[in-house]
């Protein structure tokens, strides 16, 4: 039985904040395949293309036939716990601070035996369900969970250490004017977030989301990502208690290069979508990175909501997509820079959303509730990349197959 987490007491300002430490983060090149799969929440292992042997740990050649053609394929995550130990002492600070730590040996139905983390609710010799998760060094690790759900399962200390669960955490939604902000706020509250802050730029203008945000229990605060002072002021006020930051600030207008006259609109897009993200990262990043070991409500994740066309452009929204590409590139840099602290950057890629500025596009479109669902489940699973909705998922599959073919296809879609 997992002991449910309890809301932490108010922080004692005289007490030293625990410095973040990391689990071992060095891996061989071959092992990065596990991390790549974990970023999307897939359970994949090296599978020999020639003889089909599934192997682990990752190698540079097949341990059955010496083939070097070793793609990572999704395999069954079912297995049986063979043996276990509880580590009571470790020379590695991260684990030393977290012992006792349960580890086990699991025989996978797919073949190999893996040494993995073991959830507290797994009973000896039980059938288990393995998950490939990112740990706080940003690397893929395997955790064995009970086959059936158990009470307060997500509160298990090992699972909690890997996830970015909003339960008992405080979340900042940077732009409460985003049409989906109320859905996000409501979903976060439902997922157990103790506090939801919603930023509001241009507070003198009416905010049609205000009532819905307040109804969802969000606290509305002035925050304008185009104004460095405003961002710094807000970071000074709540930077020390933002455990999860969800950047919804976005400037969206249709049109490619030729559909636009001049660069004024593009400048606004870059100012909000790219520079806004940078301002937020500079103001909130250091405080969040310093609080990743701060107990139950430690800082865990930075979420960017991006258009999936950030990865490959399509001309109908060509200029906006270019600003999204800039934001994506910046997010990759942030991810690498935050990694040393354990603060995770999660990008949620969406297709066109159900809102005014995408009105001319045909369905399917992403709704507010769908986006909120993707964000919450991505946080709960501790993902780095989330593909929200059918368009984004379809895009991802096509991108994986051949990015150049996708570019050609998307270029032609604009002609409709």
């Amino acid at each position, binding site marked *: 039985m997992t002991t449910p987490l309890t809301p932490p007491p108010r922080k004692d300002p005289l007490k030293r904040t625990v410095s973040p430490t990391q689990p071992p983060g060095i891996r061989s090149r071959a092992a990065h395949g596990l991390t790549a799969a974990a970023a999307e929440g897939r359970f994949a292992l090296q599978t020999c293309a020639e003889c089909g042997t599934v192997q682990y740990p990752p190698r540079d050649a097949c341990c059955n036939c010496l083939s070097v053609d070793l793609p990572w394929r999704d395999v069954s995550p079912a297995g049986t716990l063979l*043996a276990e130990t509880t580590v009571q002492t470790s020379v590695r600070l991260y684990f030393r601070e977290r012992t006792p730590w*349960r*580890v086990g040996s699991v025989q996978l139905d797919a073949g190999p035996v893996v040494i993995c983390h073991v959830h507290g609710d797994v009973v000896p010799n039980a059938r288990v369900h393995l998950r490939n998760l990112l740990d706080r060094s940003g690397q893929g690790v395997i955790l064995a969970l009970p086959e059936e759900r158990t009470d307060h399962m997500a509160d298990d200390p090992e699972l909690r250490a890997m996830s970015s669960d909003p339960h008992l955490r405080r979340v900042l939604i940077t732009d409460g004017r985003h049409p989906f902000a109320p859905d996000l706020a409501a979903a976060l509250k439902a997922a157990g977030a103790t506090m939801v802050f919603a930023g509001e730029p241009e507070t003198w203008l009416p905010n049609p989301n205000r009532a819905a945000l307040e109804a969802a229990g969000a606290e509305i605060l002035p925050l304008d990502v185009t104004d460095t002072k405003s961002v710094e002021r807000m970071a000074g006020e709540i930077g020390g208690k933002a455990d999860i930051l969800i950047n919804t600030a976005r400037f969206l207008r249709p049109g490619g290069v030729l559909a636009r006259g001049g660069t004024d609109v593009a400048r606004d897009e870059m100012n909000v979508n790219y520079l806004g993200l940078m301002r937020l990262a500079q103001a909130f990043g250091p405080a969040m990175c310093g609080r990743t070991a701060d107990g139950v409500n430690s800082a865990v994740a930075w979420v960017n909501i991006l258009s999936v066309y950030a990865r490959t452009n399509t001309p109908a929204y060509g200029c906006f997509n270019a600003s999204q590409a800039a934001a994506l590139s910046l997010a990759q840099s942030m991810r690498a820079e935050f990694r040393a602290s354990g603060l995770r950057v999660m990008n949620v890629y969406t297709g066109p959303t159900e809102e005014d500025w995408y009105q001319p596009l045909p369905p399917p479109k992403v709704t507010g509730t769908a986006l909120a669902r993707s964000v919450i489940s991505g946080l709960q699973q501790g993902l780095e990349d989330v593909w929200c909705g059918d368009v984004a998922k379809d895009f991802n599959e096509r991108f994986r197959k051949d990015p150049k073919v996708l570019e050609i296809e998307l270029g032609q879609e604009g002609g409709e």
Partner: protein
Amino acid sequence: MTRQPYDGVVLAAPVTIPYTRYSTETAHWWIARALRAALKTADLSPKSLDGLSVASFTLFPDTPVGLTQHLGLSPRWLDSVPMGGASGVVALRRAARAVQAGDAHIVACVAGDTNHIDSFRRLLSSFSRFAMDAGYPYGYGGPNANFALLTDRYMQEYGATREDFGRICVAQRDNALRNPHAVMKKPLTLEQYLSARPISDPIALFDCVMPVAGSEAYLVMREEDAQRRSLPYARICSTIERHNAHTADPIQLRGGWTVDIDELWEMAGCTPADIDLLQTYDDYPVISAMQIEDLGFCPKGEAPQFIRDHDLTIAGDFPHNTSGGQLSAGQAGAAGGFIGLVEAIRQVTGTAGPTQVAGAKRAAVAGFGMINYDRGLCSAAAIIEGQGA
């Protein structure tokens, strides 16, 4: 084709340089001291030594090649044995064949490592790629956690209890109390063993070796050379070596010895009943239990009962790890792969002094090493024979 016997080749000049918990000296220093002592025993000058075999984890950035210049040696036969706990027997196998074939006249086999504050943690953090990719990220319990998994499974499978493993440790501590150079000097009771601080369940403090600095050496030469130099010596009856055996076993409950065990006894022309003492590789007691089974002293899974039925001390009916083994004398890195063999040479040549088993003539020595990921990959064993005390 049957293997050639080791006729005419012998082991002599066993040396143990007393271990220390920590040392400010280097592996070079420790190796030099053991080498010097062995050569001195045989009245050999360093310049005249033509064969050298080295096992060490802490020579970095040097290799045994660099060591020849460092120590002023000019061997025509040089070997590096990076096999941890199997290095003693493996070095013997290779050196014996070199001497037998005339590639070297005399081979000095030496193992040594230093132990600085924090050097064990560093050694651990770069041990193998599989450990880096798939071991360390999981609780970073090091070998303790790996052996805890094997111990857990062994207990489930064969009904072994912590008391059974405790008997091995307590008997070895008794033996160590007779060895003036053992790092552990206080008696150990079964109660103390059972109530010790947990390390990685079911492994507790006294299941773990103490990392120390130290070195061990012996010489391999022709029998007539040993006689000419009036050195007590031991003959090599048989040896085996195996790596990465039983890959289909989901968890290690047996070692590679089981693959080659028949050949070991056949070549030696004797049976386990003819053995006067056994030196197992004892990084953890479960591995000693496994060796008692896999070398044929009892059937698989019956080591717990065997341990209950026998007295494993020097004066007992089954003398085992007579110097106290690594569990009580300390683990000096790669020298941990030599400790049993060097003590066995002393035993069968009647030169073991305070740890001498009365009338010991024939010894079995086993090595086990290199936890690359989830199990020890190297296994080796040798039967040696001397004139006795």
